[in-house]
């Protein structure tokens, strides 16, 4: 031990002497990394592995015994006769519908906003800040606010639509309106976030490319099609990825606005997982659900990448 330590010090000294100014001591990088890595191992790596371990056990929070059950928790999710499969896939369906319906809007609307904000006009910084503002509010505020705005009988949205002779719509109580409402609220809330990332991407496209296209006689639309969209491809892949992740995590909007209703049509996968784990204390089962959802999500992400690459060639 002692010999090793002194050899280490020696090596460290030699390293410092030989590499000169660029040389920090050998241990220095690890010392700088240590505080973060401690947290990282304790709260990211450890739990990710421990979650798999839990999912292989009948891990009831309240019971002393937590017997090993192998893949039973996963098998149950594919067994139509088990009590867990039905609610889980029902939740997966709700999350799936929400994701499918929201991601396209959360890409196209922000792209439009970014193109709008990329033009030079007086007050541009102000409007950019305004369009981003909803994102700084949490889902709790958004949820409570829109629960009232979307109320069937005394919500202002139905009152506004009534001016145009549109009859009352059950935004929180009828399908497909509940999904329409959840998607619209999410777009209202997060479009500004994606728009800012798109805007940064737009500003990275060299002006010469537009000038060259203009010399070739390309009109505005052709420039958008042939310069802007290809130039934004990496940013678009990034946005689609983070938006998919966010949509799969959907929870607060459905909890606060539709309360999972009407029926349990908007009870998302995450609502089912938290209910199984925290209300029924079946955490092993809930962990298995989490991992299955994560696997489904990565499959969707891979398919999306493949499709986006194909379009390129």
């Amino acid at each position, binding site marked *: 031990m002692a010999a090793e330590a002194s050899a280490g010090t020696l090596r460290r000294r030699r390293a410092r002497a030989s590499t000169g100014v660029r040389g920090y001591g050998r241990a220095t990088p690890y010392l700088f*990394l240590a505080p973060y890595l401690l*947290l990282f191992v304790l709260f*990211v790596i450890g739990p990710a592995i421990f979650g798999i371990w*839990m999912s292989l056990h009948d891990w009831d929070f309240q019971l002393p015994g937590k017997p090993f059950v192998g893949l039973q928790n996963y098998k149950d999710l594919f067994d139509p006769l088990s009590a867990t499969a039905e609610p889980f896939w029902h939740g997966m369906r709700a999350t799936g519908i929400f994701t499918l319906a929201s991601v396209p809007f959360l890409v196209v609307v922000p792209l439009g906003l970014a193109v709008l904000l990329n*033009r030079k006009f007086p007050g541009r910084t102000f409007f950019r800040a305004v369009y*981003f503002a909803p994102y700084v509010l949490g889902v709790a505020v958004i949820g409570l606010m*829109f629960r009232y705005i979307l109320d069937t009988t*005394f919500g*202002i949205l139905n009152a506004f639509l009534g001016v145009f002779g549109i009859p009352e719509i059950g935004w929180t109580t009828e399908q497909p309106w509940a999904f329409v409402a959840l998607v619209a609220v999410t777009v209202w809330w997060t479009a500004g976030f994606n728009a800012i990332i798109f805007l940064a991407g737009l500003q990275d496209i060299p002006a010469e490319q537009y000038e060259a296209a203009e010399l070739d006689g390309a009109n505005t639309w052709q420039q958008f099609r042939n310069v802007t969209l290809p130039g934004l491809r990496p940013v678009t892949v990034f946005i689609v990825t983070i938006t998919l992740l966010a949509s799969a*995590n959907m929870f607060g909007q459905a909890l606060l606005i539709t309360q999972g209703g009407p029926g349990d049509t908007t009870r998302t996968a995450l609502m089912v997982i938290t209910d199984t784990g925290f209300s029924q204390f079946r955490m092993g089962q809930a962990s298995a659900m989490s991992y299955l959802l994560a696997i489904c999500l990565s499959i969707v992400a891979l398919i999306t990448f493949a499709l986006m690459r194909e379009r390129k060639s």
Partner: protein
Amino acid sequence: MRRRPSAAFWVMVVLLTLLVIVPLLWMVITSFKTVGESQADPPTLIPQDPSGRAFGEVLTTGGQNPVLRWALNSFAAATLHAALVVVVASMAGYALARMEFRGKNFIFSFILLTLFIPGFVFLMPNYLLMDNLGWLDTLWALVVPGAAGAFGVFFMRQFFLAIPKELEEVALIDGANAWIVFTRIILPNAKPALATLTVLSFLANWNDFVWPLFVLFSPERLTLPAGLSLLQGAYTTDYPVIMAGATVAAVPVLILYVFVQRYVIEGVARSGIKG
């Protein structure tokens, strides 16, 4: 692309602005109404009988819905969390940007990879970990685990890569050690990035919903988001009170945003640029 904006352009810009502002304004207006007026058909645009009852209700109840207490908890948690993130992420980010050591690429790739693991995977195991540490229903559960996220490290690393190396090299020739170089030279030059990371971490923590909802139980220990969902359950159709609660949660963030919007927006803009 470079024409002067047309009238249609301005109509669009203004309509979008209204779309953002009207719901927020409606929330604030409603919080000054009476219950009856909040359910009036057609709705009144200006409170006919303005009342501070709703605010009185949320700001003074000491019992089940101590909104002020929640605001204080949120503030304490978000502040401590942001401080912790900035310290650990800037140190790790600096090592990954500027130091050569064995396993560097592996460690960085590994950290980066976890950016793409969805948060719900950690929910159950981290809950049990909190239970074992005795952190359930405490501030620590809100402050510490979130600081293990990869974003801060990634963000700081990107920033440090862009600082000219000469700065440190001169100091090292003068015999300064790594810690002195880092705290006296690097950090003062990283103020904008540190400010951005502080604000982004603060906001994310202030707004976090799922985690506090499950790791906190006592009414007096909740944060605003967790408390608001309780408020909604308790007051069901008393919308002025619910809107007053939402206003109390929204206004401090919006005021903060007015002052730091540049940092927030630049931080978000930079997060999309990959290194």
